[in-house]
């Protein structure tokens, strides 16, 4: 029989590692804070990424997944390129977003709604459709803000920067088959 | 020496091209000396004689048997056993008997694959009914048998006990004469030895050699080799470094790289691995990917290159057979 040296770590840590390509680097975090310092939205985060990693190590799943940290992430990748331990921090933020959405814990943000609206459009048409996206997203999520957005939308429209109808790709069925298969297989790495 | 006391000589031809038989004749007028010195009791290629004549001889009654060719069929295996039993000294004559040679390259395929090629696929084949040799055929007179064709060609030494090996494809006249005179005079090397020189072809090659560093291996058609410099240093896959000397470096002399027909040096267990290690050692790179590239591009057929003559006698002996062609147990 063979025994492989089992990796000791919190269940949540293992979950994150399993869900993020390159995520195993997370164990090397030395809490230096170059991620939190680099983040354009770091000042607004409940926990900086460094803090999140400490919580992950401590198996504080709920605390992490209900926090606003990953929703502050704008995917600028400064943290990732600067991390002295080459932790794919932005990718881990995506993993946290996925978990939070999947479990309905993303309470502090409208980002999941935006993401859902966006990806629905892509699934239907194969391309994104801004007017549809904006109207659906604002209608369902921020009906008041929609009024505010009116003038800007108009300005965009008059400059020919917003289409009234979506563009649909020819082989949308093929794309949908791929997406169906991906959902069926599920997960990543 | 009285006529009756002349030692008895047998020569047999198994799986080989026949070049070895010709090489015996290529010792020219000395063949007369051979005829004078020996009583040739069995030589199917040149003299009439039947297997059952040999079968009737007393065991050990033939003094020397020069056996060329590898063992590919049950008949050849039977003959190898027979000649072994009847001979005092059994010589694996030439590359086929010693190390398998070109017929041994058939070990890169199975019997089925070989039959497919020969009886079906080869462009020169005209066989619309798809006839294949059958091991057994029922005739009114009874069952007829063809010898069984083996999946794996064996060398003579892998089949029966061999006393001496004579290298070369075919052996050089000089070396044959040396062997013959040694046997006649009774000045024999230790049993199991290969009769020949104990160094490699480079020793006899007059090309200029320096320390070797190779960035790319070349095929012969890719360059016009310089006549003075070591061919290997020019990138050609010259097997002279690992091949037993004795041929006078014939091929390199005419700008053609040695292909290794003389087999490995004494005491070396696997010719191909000597070539591999020698060539790998002088690759001029420390980058794994680049090394892989140099090897893959320069040596597209490593087995054919390194084991052209010796696959059957190498440690691995053949290509792995597909799982479904594993020996059937009845």
């Amino acid at each position, binding site marked *: 029989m063979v025994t492989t040296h089992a990796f000791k770590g919190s269940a949540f840590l293992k979950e994150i590692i399993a869900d993020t390509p390159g995520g195993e680097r997370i164990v090397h975090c030395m809490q230096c804070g170059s991620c939190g310092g680099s983040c354009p939205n770091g000042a607004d985060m409940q926990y900086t990424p460094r803090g999140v990693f400490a919580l992950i190590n401590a198996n504080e799943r709920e605390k992490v997944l209900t926090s606003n940290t990953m929703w502050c992430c704008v995917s600028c990748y400064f943290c990732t390129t600067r991390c002295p331990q080459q932790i794919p921090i932005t990718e881990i933020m995506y993993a946290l977003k996925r978990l939070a959405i999947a479990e309905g814990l993303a309470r502090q943000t409208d980002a999941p709604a935006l993401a859902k609206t966006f990806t629905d459009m892509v699934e239907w048409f194969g391309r994104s459709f801004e007017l549809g996206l904006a109207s659906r997203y604002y209608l369902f999520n921020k009906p008041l803000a929609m009024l505010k957005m009116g003038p800007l939308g108009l300005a965009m429209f008059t400059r020919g920067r917003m289409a009234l109808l979506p563009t649909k790709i020819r082989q949308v069925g093929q794309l949908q088959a791929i997406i169906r298969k991906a959902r069926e297989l599920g997960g990543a790495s | 020496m009285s006529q009756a006391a002349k030692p008895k000589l047998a020569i047999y031809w198994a799986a080989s091209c026949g070049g070895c038989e010709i090489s015996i004749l290529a010792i020219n007028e000395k063949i007369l000396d051979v005829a004078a010195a020996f009583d040739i009791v069995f030589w199917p290629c040149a003299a009439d004689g039947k297997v059952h004549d040999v079968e009737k001889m007393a065991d050990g009654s033939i003094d020397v048997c020069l056996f060329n060719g590898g063992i590919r069929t049950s008949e050849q295996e039977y003959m190898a056993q027979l000649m072994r039993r009847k001979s005092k000294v059994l010589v694996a004559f030439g590359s086929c008997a010693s190390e398998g040679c070109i017929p041994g390259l058939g070990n890169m395929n199975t019997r089925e694959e070989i039959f497919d090629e020969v009886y079906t696929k080869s462009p020169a084949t005209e066989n619309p009914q798809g006839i294949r040799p059958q091991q057994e055929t029922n005739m009114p007179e009874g069952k007829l048998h063809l010898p069984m064709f083996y999946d794996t060609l064996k060398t003579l030494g892998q089949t029966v006990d061999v006393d001496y090996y004579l290298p070369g494809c075919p052996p050089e006249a000089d070396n044959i004469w040396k062997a013959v005179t040694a046997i006649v005079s009774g000045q024999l090397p230790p049993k199991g030895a290969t009769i020949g020189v104990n160094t490699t072809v480079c020793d006899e090659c007059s090309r200029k050699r320096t320390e070797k560093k190779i960035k790319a291996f070349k095929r012969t058609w890719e360059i016009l080799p310089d006549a003075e410099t070591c061919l290997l240093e020019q990138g050609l896959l010259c097997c002279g470094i690992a091949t037993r000397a004795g041929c006078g470096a014939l091929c390199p002399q005419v700008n053609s790289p040695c292909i290794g027909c003389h087999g490995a040096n004494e005491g070396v267990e696997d010719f191909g691995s000597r070539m591999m290690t020698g060539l*790998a*050692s002088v690759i001029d790179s*420390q980058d794994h990917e680049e090394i892989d590239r140099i090897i893959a591009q320069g040596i597209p*057929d490593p087995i054919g290159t390194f084991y052209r003559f010796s696959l059957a006698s190498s440690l691995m002996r053949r290509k792995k057979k597909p799982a479904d062609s594993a020996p059937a147990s009845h």
Partner: protein
Amino acid sequence: MAETATFEPKIVGFMCNWCSYRAADLAGSARIKHAPNVRIIRVMCSGRVDPTFVFKAFSLGADAVMMAGCHPGECHYIEQNYKAMRRYSMIEHSLKQLGVEPDRFRLVWASAAEGQQLAEAVDKFVEDVRKLGPLNWHANLAESDERLEALANIVKEHEEALEVLP
């Protein structure tokens, strides 16, 4: 397959005296448990590993062969592991043509401090070989049982022929 469930690969590991053999020592002193399938032969340097050793091991029944040495650039003998690397590539290239699966021959770098890494590499290797099943090279050389029958037939037919001879 029931067979592979109990299959324990026999693997020969050629390890250099200074790094990988010491890494294996360290794995021991640190009690890092790992698969017992790699049987180690100590050589002074990975540069000593002759292709003959590898072919010999396969032909004698090894299911896989591991070559291990110091990391490139860290050889105790300065640069000999690069020569090992070149030979590895050459052997790998030839084994491929002989139909031996690439996962049966592996080059591993382990410094004397990398007991854990070596143990992991061993476990991974054993796992990969286990998936392939036994290599059993000598079975690959055996002819079918008909061989003895065919030989017997020749003997019999010759005997019969001799009988009818005058």
